[in-house]
Every structure is written in structure tokens, then in C-alpha cells.
């Protein structure tokens, strides 16, 4: 029974990691940038979701509005921050992105205060019985919400014109361009979707902890960096699997090696071991 | 004459691409051998397998009778082979002179301790200048890499390889990007160095120059060796001419 509970725990975290990490790996696939500021968008999403839920009383409406806004902010980040420095050595964009992230965290702290905000009435706290386990509704929403969002995303990528153009651009930008795909459009779309997903993840985390705080983006997002590396930078499928694996490894790890390492250290120890064994990540790019 | 390089049964697959299939050949001490074949034949892959840049699924490679399979790239280079890149890769942070001087100082950087205990670069820079002069790009030495024409960078690759004082020089399309006169001059320089005793293996699409300077040919097509021997005789073989569909081969054979 313990195992099953740990597994479910791992799955919940894994799903959350997955929707943060997908946006990151998409950006990496297209631009070869480690987009650390993605974590700032995650936090922004949480704040907007929480504030709008408190204001309107509807979590759903808040998610839609927060996702859209954060998506647009993501596009603006591409336009004004990354686009001008794409041709520089890779560390330039990485450091710029870290700077942007730190500045964003500070802005949240200044705007919303250092101690974080809470929900006036936390949604989705009712207990649900599921296979003999007591789960909160929010757990189920996270798991099924993430899976369905990623499902829709994958359907879009496989079946729609835009999705096909987008996959072509990831594979070979020059080739895609010569077939008339607007690489710029694809990049904007990419930032919109990735950022909106990060906002969803932020809202999920705020629901789990009943809080949105300035530093909440830190740890999950560094972990998302670890995940996309594990998944073989730029490989979407690999990233999803790596997210779930990491969630489960952490859940079991905290039980078995928790005395030596905390949860985050377990994640990174796992990352380091895997990378030393397989430098290209668990799943390499094709 | 003794065998300097002995390549046996090299097989290299990249996923489904069979870049090389069971290719064997030998290079004699002091000879000038050209490795030719159409685009994608596996020529570059062969040089990379010899220098250790790629690891074939199967290969036996001996230099001077000693197996070098399994040795890392820098150790193979220290045994006396130097390769130029088909797609030039100069150190963009250094000027032309220092690109060559670094290679000329290969003994100084052989160990970290030696490297940290020597500072003076005068002798190596002087030697680099001589090499660049010899290759006809001596007046560019103080310039940055950015903005140099391909012809200059191609010769820089050759200068850098020569600076290593190799026993075996492996050239990957050194004449590409050079005009007619420059190409002939560079080929002459290489011939001259070869006459002084350096063994040369050259990949080249410029068949006119190939036929003028090489002592022997190895022809690859589709990852397999299809012919080997005296240049004039090899070029007359129907299968070699069939591999080269196009004007180039017609011209050369004429």
C-alpha cells in the first residue's frame, strides 16, 4: 500500500514537473536557450491565478485568464530579451535569462509582499476515494489536467497545419523556412504555449500549498532544467517520461535515503548519476 | 618501401547510413596517395576514423606497425598524424599566427606542467610565420579570423597541420575554395613537402590536380572501395567513371 501511495505521490509531482518542463524543452528545441526565466512565468501564473480566483470566485476563469496573460508575457520575453541575442555564445542567453528570472522574483516580492498570498477559500480540497486511497480533488485535477493538456498539445502538433509547421521548424529551421513556414511565428507560438503551461503548473502548485510566494519558482524550475537535460534536451517525449521518473524517484528517495539527502538533492543526485552514465540524457534527441 | 599506415576492414554506420563498409588500404612510407570518390562516399569519415574523431563499429588501424585503435584523438596526433578539416575550424579567438603557433608548440603543451612552466612564444611564432609564408598567406598573420576568405582559412588548416611536424599528413579537400592559380600553387607546395619525405593522404574533388600530383589513388563509392592503384589506370576503369556521373570525371579522363 505504501508503494502505491508513493507511486501516486510521484505521479502527481511528475505531472507538475512535466507541464513546467515541456515549455522549457520546447524553447530549447527551437532556440538552444536554457530559458531559466520560465520559472518566473510559472510564479507569475500562480499569482495571477490566485488573485483572479479570489476576485472572481472561479478557478476555471482564473486559469484561462492567467494562462493567456502569461502566454503573452512569454512572447514579449522572446521578442525583447532573447531575439536580439540569439547569435551570441550560449552562455550569454543563459546568464541574461538568469538575470531576468532574479529580477522577476524581486518584482513579485515588491508587488505582492515577501510572505506570499493565500486563497480566501481554497478550491478543490474535498477528499476523494480512489483505489482505497484518500486523495484530494486537487491531486486528481493535477494529474488529469496535465495529461489532458499535454494530450491536446500533442494532438495539435500531429494534426494541425500549425503543429506540423512547428515540428518541421524544430527539426530543421532552414528547411521549414524554405517550405514557407514562418519561423518567427512558430517561435512566438512556442513561447505562448510553453508559458501558458508554466502558468498552469504555477496554479497547481499554489493549490497544493495554498500559497503563491515570490520564491516558489526556484526549486521546481531548477528541477525542470534537470528534467529537460535528462529527457535529452529538446526531446518532448523524453521530457515527459523523465518528469514522471523523477517524480517517482523523489517520492521513493525521500523514504529510503531521506536521512542523507533532502528531496531536491535526491533529484540532482539522480540527474548527475544518469548524466555520467548517459551524457546525452536518458533519451537523446532522435 | 615500408607500410606507414595500414587500414583494415573499416566499417562505420551512422544509424542506417552505411558511411564505410569493410574498407581496407595501405599507405606506404613517403607516398602521395589521393582518396577520391563522389559526395557522400565516406572519404571524410575514413580520415576521421583514422584520427579517432569517430569510432567505427569495426576497424584495425596501424601506424608504423603499431595498432592505434582505442587511442584517444590527441594521442594518435602525438604519434605523428595531422588532419585538416574539410569544413575549416580555426580558433576564432586567435589571429592566424597564433592558430599555427599553438600547433607549433605541441611539445610545450604536451603536459600541463610543461605548459605552465614555459612562457616564451617567440620560436613558435617564428616557425608559424615561416609556414604561413610558405603557403602564401604570410601577410595575413596578424589579422583576425573573422572575415577571412575561405581560401586563406583552407591554407591555414594546412599550415596548422604542418606545424605539428607529422609523419602522416591527412588533407581533406585542401584545394576547395581556392582559385585555379592558388590551388595549383598549394598543390605544388604539398608535393614539395612530400618530396622531402612527408607521407600525404589527400581527399580532393579537383581531379585535375589529383591526377597531376598523386602517386596512387584509392576510390570510394557509397562507403566501399571500388578501385585502387595508378591514377591514370584507375581513372580509366568503367566503374570509377560510372561512380562519377558528371562533367568532372569526363574532363579528367579526357
Amino acid at each position: 500500500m505504501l508503494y502505491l501511495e508513493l507511486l501516486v505521490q510521484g505521479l502527481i509531482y511528475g505531472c507538475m514537473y512535466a507541464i513546467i518542463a515541456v515549455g522549457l524543452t520546447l524553447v530549447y528545441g527551437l532556440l538552444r536557450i536554457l530559458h531559466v526565466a520560465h520559472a518566473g512565468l510559472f510564479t507569475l501564473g500562480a499569482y495571477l491565478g490566485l488573485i483572479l480566483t479570489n476576485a472572481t470566485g472561479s478557478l476555471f476563469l482564473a486559469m484561462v485568464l492567467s494562462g493567456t496573460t502569461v502566454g503573452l508575457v512569454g512572447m514579449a520575453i522572446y521578442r525583447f530579451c532573447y531575439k536580439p541575442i540569439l547569435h551570441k555564445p550560449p552562455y550569454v542567453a543563459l546568464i541574461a535569462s538568469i538575470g531576468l528570472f532574479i529580477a522577476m522574483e524581486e518584482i513579485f516580492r515588491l508587488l505582492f509582499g515577501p510572505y506570499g498570498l493565500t486563497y480566501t477559500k481554497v478550491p478543490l480540497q474535498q477528499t476523494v476515494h480512489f483505489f482505497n486511497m484518500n486523495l484530494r480533488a486537487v491531486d486528481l485535477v493535477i494529474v488529469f489536467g496535465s495529461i489532458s493538456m499535454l494530450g491536446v498539445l500533442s494532438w495539435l502538433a500531429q494534426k494541425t497545419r500549425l503543429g506540423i509547421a512547428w515540428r518541421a521548424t524544430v527539426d530543421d529551421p532552414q528547411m521549414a523556412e524554405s517550405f514557407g513556414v514562418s519561423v518567427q511565428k512558430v517561435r512566438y507560438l512556442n513561447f505562448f504555449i510553453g508559458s501558458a503551461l508554466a502558468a498552469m503548473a504555477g496554479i497547481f502548485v499554489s493549490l497544493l500549498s495554498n500559497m503563491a510566494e515570490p520564491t516558489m519558482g526556484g526549486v521546481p524550475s531548477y528541477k525542470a532544467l534537470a528534467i529537460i537535460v535528462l529527457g535529452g534536451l529538446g526531446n518532448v517525449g523524453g521530457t515527459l517520461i523523465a518528469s514522471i521518473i523523477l517524480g517517482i524517484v523523489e517520492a521513493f528517495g525521500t523514504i529510503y535515503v531521506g536521512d542523507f539527502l533532502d528531496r531536491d538533492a535526491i533529484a540532482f543526485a539522480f540527474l548527475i548519476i544518469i548524466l555520467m552514465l548517459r551524457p546525452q540524457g536518458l533519451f537523446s534527441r532522435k | 618501401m615500408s607500410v606507414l599506415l595500414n587500414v583494415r576492414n573499416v566499417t562505420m554506420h551512422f544509424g542506417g547510413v552505411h558511411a564505410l563498409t569493410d574498407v581496407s588500404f595501405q599507405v606506404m612510407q613517403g607516398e602521395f596517395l589521393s582518396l577520391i570518390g563522389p559526395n557522400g562516399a565516406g572519404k571524410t569519415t575514413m580520415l576521421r576514423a583514422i584520427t579517432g574523431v569517430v569510432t567505427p563499429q569495426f576497424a584495425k588501424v596501424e601506424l608504423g606497425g603499431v595498432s592505434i585503435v582505442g587511442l584517444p584523438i590527441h594521442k594518435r596526433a602525438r604519434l605523428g598524424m595531422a588532419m585538416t578539416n574539410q569544413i575549416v575550424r580555426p580558433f576564432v579567438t586567435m589571429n592566424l599566427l597564433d592558430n599555427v603557433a599553438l600547433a607549433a608548440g605541441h611539445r610545450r603543451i604536451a603536459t600541463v606542467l610543461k605548459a605552465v612552466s614555459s612562457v616564451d612564444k617567440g620560436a613558435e611564432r617564428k616557425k608559424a610565420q615561416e609556414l604561413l609564408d610558405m603557403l602564401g598567406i604570410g601577410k595575413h598573420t596578424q589579422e583576425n579570423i573573422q572575415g577571412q576568405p575561405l581560401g586563406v582559412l583552407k591554407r591555414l588548416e594546412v599550415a596548422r597541420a604542418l606545424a605539428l611536424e607529422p609523419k602522416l599528413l591527412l588533407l581533406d579537400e585542401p584545394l576547395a575554395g581556392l582559385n585555379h592559380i592558388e590551388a595549383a600553387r598549394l598543390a605544388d607546395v604539398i608535393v614539395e613537402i612530400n618530396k622531402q619525405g612527408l607521407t600525404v593522404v589527400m581527399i580532393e574533388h579537383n581531379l585535375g590536380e589529383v591526377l597531376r600530383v598523386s602517386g596512387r589513388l584509392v576510390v570510394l563509392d557509397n562507403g566501399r572501395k571500388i578501385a585502387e592503384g595508378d591514377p591514370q589506370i584507375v581513372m580509366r576503369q568503367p566503374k570509377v567513371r560510372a561512380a562519377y556521373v558528371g562533367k568532372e570525371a569526363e574532363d579528367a579522363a579526357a
Partner: protein
Amino acid sequence: MGIYELSLAIIVCINIVLALGLNLITGYCGQISLGHAAFFGIGAYTVGVLAKAGFPSAVCIFAAILMAGFIGIIVGTASLRVRDDFLAITTMGVGFLFLGIIRQQEGLLGGEMGLSGIPTIGFDKPGFLVIAFIAVILCSALSLYIKRSWMGFAFDAVATDEDTAKLLTVDVAAYKLTAFALGTAMAGLAGGLYCYFTRFIMPDDFGFLTSISVLSMVAVGGIGSVPGVIIGTALLTLLPEMSTFLSDYKLLFYGAMLFAVMRFAPEGIAGIGTRVVQIYGRRGDAK
């Protein structure tokens, strides 16, 4: 100089030693590290534990240097397996792993609460500043010498294109490990001094933000340039102290500065300096 100014000067010196170490790894040898603070921490905790056990300060500092350098070599082996972005994330992971281990070691390392009651180094503040300053001089001199030597030449090749360097007989692995050993040893020295200076250390002093701050100092100063790194470090350490406005918004300022420098002048202060000199020089030629 008052106590406050002295303390500031000492912190600047410690940060310069720390940043020069990262500059060796990232600036000279091209190996990006997002976990430099871990080695700063290793140095600090080595001194903390040994000093509390009663060892003399010279021994403690020496042990800090060795310990950080030794673990630096181990971590450096990661750079033989993974490159660029993969290496950045791996070293970031090393930083988190270090913190995780420290936090769980309550007995020896004080866990979350940190180590306090560390004995004094045996000098007053001015004396400490002299020692820190000597450390800066030594590390700068070593860095400048390396740059001039054939080792710096080889580092440059490894940083620019390691595959080509290998074809030119460079033993890339040996040079990378050397860069890691030297750079992390400097971080260990900085950490040891820091521990004696504050006499109270906590895991959070050596977290990801510290790694990023050091990287900022190097990047803002100009990656690879010793004077640039010194100026960048002094600037980023002192500016927040200059005005209460900046200290309230220290992190915002850091973040914005980091972003702005990378966005508008990726070569940092040293790059701007070089550009000015070039323009000036060209004018001089024209005369």
C-alpha cells in the same frame, strides 16, 4: 577606515578570489559552472570544522584549499562527459547536492542552523584585510601568469574548440581538470577566509544565488579578463552598499544588471574597455 569600511573591503577581496577562480574555469577554459558556490562552501565548512577542532588557522586554510580543489577535480570529471548546457545543469546539480548534504548533516556540519562559534583567525580587522589582500594579489598574479604561459594558450584552444584542440595534440581532459582544480582551490581559499571572517556559516550562504552572483561578477566584468573580473566584482559587491535604495533592491538590481549587460554588452566591462581603447587607438593612428 572604520570597521564598516574594513569589513566591506575584506568582503570585496574574498569575492575577488572567488570570482577569479570561476574565471579560470569559465573564462580561461570555457567550462561553464553554475555550482561554484559549492566549492566556496566546501572551503568554508572545512575551515569551520577544523578550526573548531582546534587546528591552527594556516593548517585550516590550507586544508580548505586542498579539499575544494580535490572535490573540484572530481566534479571536473563531469566536464569530460558532458558539455555546454549539459555541463551547466550538471554543475548546478552539484550545487544543490552539496546544499542537500550539508542540510542533513546536523551533527558535524550543523545542518540547517549552520556552524557558529568558529574561533578567530588571530588577527584584528586590519590584519585580516592584509591577508585577504595578499590572497587577491596571489590569485591575480597566478591568473595573469597562466594567461601568458603556454597553459593559457592551451586553455584558450580548449575553450574555443575542444575537438580541434584534440587534433592538435592537446590533452583536453588534463587541461580541463587542471582548470577545475585551480579554480575550485581558489574558491576553497575564499571560503576559508569567509568562514574566519564571519565566524558563522549557514548552508544558504553557499546556495544557487551565490553561484549566480559570482557568475554575474565574472560576466559583468568581462569573462576571461582579470582586471575586468576585479572591477566587476568590486562593483557588484559595493554598489548595493553605496545606497540604501540599492540595498533594498539588491536582487532586483543584480538581476537587471545581469540581464542588461548580457543583452547590451555581452563582453562586459572589459569588452567596453577594449572597444574604447580600439576607437581611441584608431583615432591616434589617423593623426
